[in-house]
């Protein structure tokens, strides 16, 4: 009895607290419902990775096959090729694209004329709003060997053409180049917001101490960005194996398919065009598991290194 009596007021205060902030909780509700309906509920769908799923027998009527699809996938000669292609592209993306918005944001941050700066910011956002179909067409027009501007120029300068669009060697640089062109400007948004919150007094103090531009950049700006960079890096690792289906699909052809086949395009070909729903779900699930492992691993690592981390 005693314990109940003791508990009662504590519980009450909790409810009272919630009651006091009921509007805040109400505001959370739509978001919560969104996640439950559109993100958690469909997760039951991954069950079909362990079934021989047929739409007409439905989720409940299909036969269970355990890990058969996974076994087939891992023993398939395609697996290693897909894994290699996906990993290399993802790595390139991390090494060459990830720092690009940071560098651009730092450059923009150094511009003193505010009108000029804002104009540039607006311009670099624009490519983000173009669809990959358009970018693929633009790339074709520029890079084709039959009258493309770039190859005309190369022929004039070097005397030879480079077949960017169909050469397997040029596929990855081309893909990364497109991503950098399209997404760098947009990627600066978060970094510029973080830079805006840096205390101006720190710069003034640094100037008084005799720090030049690069010193200020190194000792004031970058440390201020550090936690933002780490968080974005961790989030990026969660999507490590997402190589962007549309872009790869549009840029691949019979001559570069040896390097262009990645998990995303494979899932599309096998799942949507061949109707192997269970198998392609298994492949997708494998990708997600890798994503979770990477995101948790990176988070732990960041904490070990003294950064905030995510969770």
């Amino acid at each position, binding site marked *: 009895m005693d314990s109940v009596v003791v508990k009662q007021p504590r519980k009450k205060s909790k409810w009272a607290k919630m009651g006091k902030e009921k509007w805040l909780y109400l505001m959370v509700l739509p978001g919560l419902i969104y996640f439950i309906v559109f993100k958690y509920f469909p997760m039951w769908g991954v069950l079909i990775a362990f079934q021989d799923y047929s739409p*007409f027998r*439905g989720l409940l009527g299909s036969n269970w096959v355990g890990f058969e699809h996974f076994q087939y996938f891992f023993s398939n000669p395609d697996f290693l090729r897909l894994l290699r292609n996906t990993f290399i592209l993802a790595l390139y993306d991390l090494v060459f694209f990830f720092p690009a918005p940071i560098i651009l944001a730092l450059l923009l941050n150094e511009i003193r004329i505010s009108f000029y700066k804002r104009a540039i910011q607006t311009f670099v956002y624009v490519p983000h709003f173009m669809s990959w179909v358009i970018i693929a067409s633009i790339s074709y027009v520029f890079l084709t060997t*039959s009258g493309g501007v770039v190859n005309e120029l190369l022929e004039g300068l070097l005397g030879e053409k480079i077949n960017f669009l169909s050469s397997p060697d040029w596929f990855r640089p081309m893909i990364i180049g497109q991503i950098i062109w399209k997404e760098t400007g947009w990627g600066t948004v978060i970094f510029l917001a973080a830079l*805006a919150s840096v205390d101006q007094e720190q710069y003034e103090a640094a100037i008084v101490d005799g720090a030049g531009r690069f010193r200020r950049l190194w000792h004031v700006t970058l440390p201020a960005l550090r936690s933002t960079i780490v968080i974005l890096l961790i989030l990026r690792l969660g999507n490590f194996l997402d190589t962007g289906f549309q872009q790869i699909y549009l840029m691949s*052809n*019979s001559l570069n*398919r040896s390097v262009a086949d990645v998990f995303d395009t494979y899932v599309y070909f096998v799942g949507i*065009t*061949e109707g192997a*729903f269970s198998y392609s779900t298994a492949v997708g699930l494998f990708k997600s598991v890798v994503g979770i492992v990477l995101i948790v691993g990176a988070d732990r690592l960041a904490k070990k290194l003294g950064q905030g981390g995510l969770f």
Partner: protein
Amino acid sequence: MMKASKLRLLLLAIFAFGLLFITACSSDSEESSTNSNSNSDSSDEENEDRMAIDVFVPTFTTEPPTDSSPVWQALEDYTNTDLTIEWAPNSNLEDKFNITLSSGDLPHVMYVPGKSPSFISAVEDGAFWELGPYLDDYPNLSQANEIILNNSSINGKIFGIYRSRDLGRNGVIIRKDWLENLGLEEPKTIDDFYNMLKAFTEEDPDGNGQDDTYGLVVSKYEGPWDVMQTWFGVPNKWGIDDDGNLYPWFLDDNYKDALDFFKKLYDEGLVNEDFAVMDPAQWSDPVVAGEAGVQVNVLDEGHRIQEKIIDAEPENEDPITVIKAVEGPFGMKNLPTSGYSGMLSISTTAVKDEEELKKVLSFLDKMNDEEAQILAENGIEGRHFEIEDGEYVSLVKDDAGLLAEMDGLNQLLMYIPEPLSLTPDTSELRQLEEDLKLENEDIVVANPAEPYISDVYAKKGQQMDNIILDARIQYIVGQIDESGLEEAVELWRSSGGDDYIEEINQLHKEAQ
């Protein structure tokens, strides 16, 4: 300060997006509300015993007819049904089809683009009615072509009514004015064909004094290679050896000769250098623009190219000619088209019993009547076309609004036993195209394995095909040599090819 401007920018972007979103949505809902209005108008009053039929068919336009269209309503009256049409854009038809299949919520009549693995597995699960036993009861459907029925069947059983098309649509489209400028004849043999391409590339066929032309234009779409290798005697998908066993086309002895010919074309610059990456949507542009002289395509592209050239240069009155094929070491051969373009299948989920099935079948049968064909293809007399001196004259050419009332309804037609819609007085070129299509039927090479459904192919077909087709392109551009080709065949065999050959031969023996 900085923060505020940043925020303002973001807000602006969000606002702009929201605006776009809202306008997009509102125009959408407007459209759908007018649809539902007219729908209730027409169906409620007139007939209550009309059968409601949902149909899934492809559309090639962005604005397919709605049920407020008078043509649509006339079709409903004629067939005594209440039609709902679900239009799937042709560009992502396969996706839409598979997604509709996987949803399990199927319309009464479903357009099936081909015997894809997903369709076959749906058939195995009993998603579609087997129609074979019923066809004889209907005046039009009973006259369906046996060969095409067999081609469209699944191991001999009919699960959809084919939409009839010509068997011999493939051919070669040539710039006639270039031939005349160079004093050349239409090519008769493969050597002539090569010489023509060579002349088109090197001898300035357009007479502008510049080296700005080439022979043959090919795009990412690999059909032209398939057609041209048939000229060399390569079988259509499967060949039959002396012992009566089936073997895949790329193991044929003549394939190597065909490949070396293609490679020669590429090495000598007679074909466009970037063919492997060229967008198929731009395939005809170089012929129209006077950059390329030859295209291997369906014959009816000939008059479309001709019309575009005449639009651009009216003084060039007769710039295009077409031939069916050229003669190779085994005589004149051509690759057939399958004789049908998809089928209309009837789902077991929406059509529950035999009685309903018979109603849907009689709807499909009626769609083959002359009156229905003319409605769906030509529209309503006096509104969409006129008969002047016994000649058909279309009135929709320059009127997008009128065209939108009917454009695409012909996707519901099967043309069984034959097309009965009206055609305009044909130009010389169109007549030639039609004649060649008929002549083609004598020289097309049949695929002996057409009706057989392979489990291996269903599961891995796409990847297996890619191995061989990619190797062909890689060989043509010199990325791999003969040993690379052999490796590709080995990879094909080990990726399921050997099982596939065995399975097809098994099915072939059973069918004999």
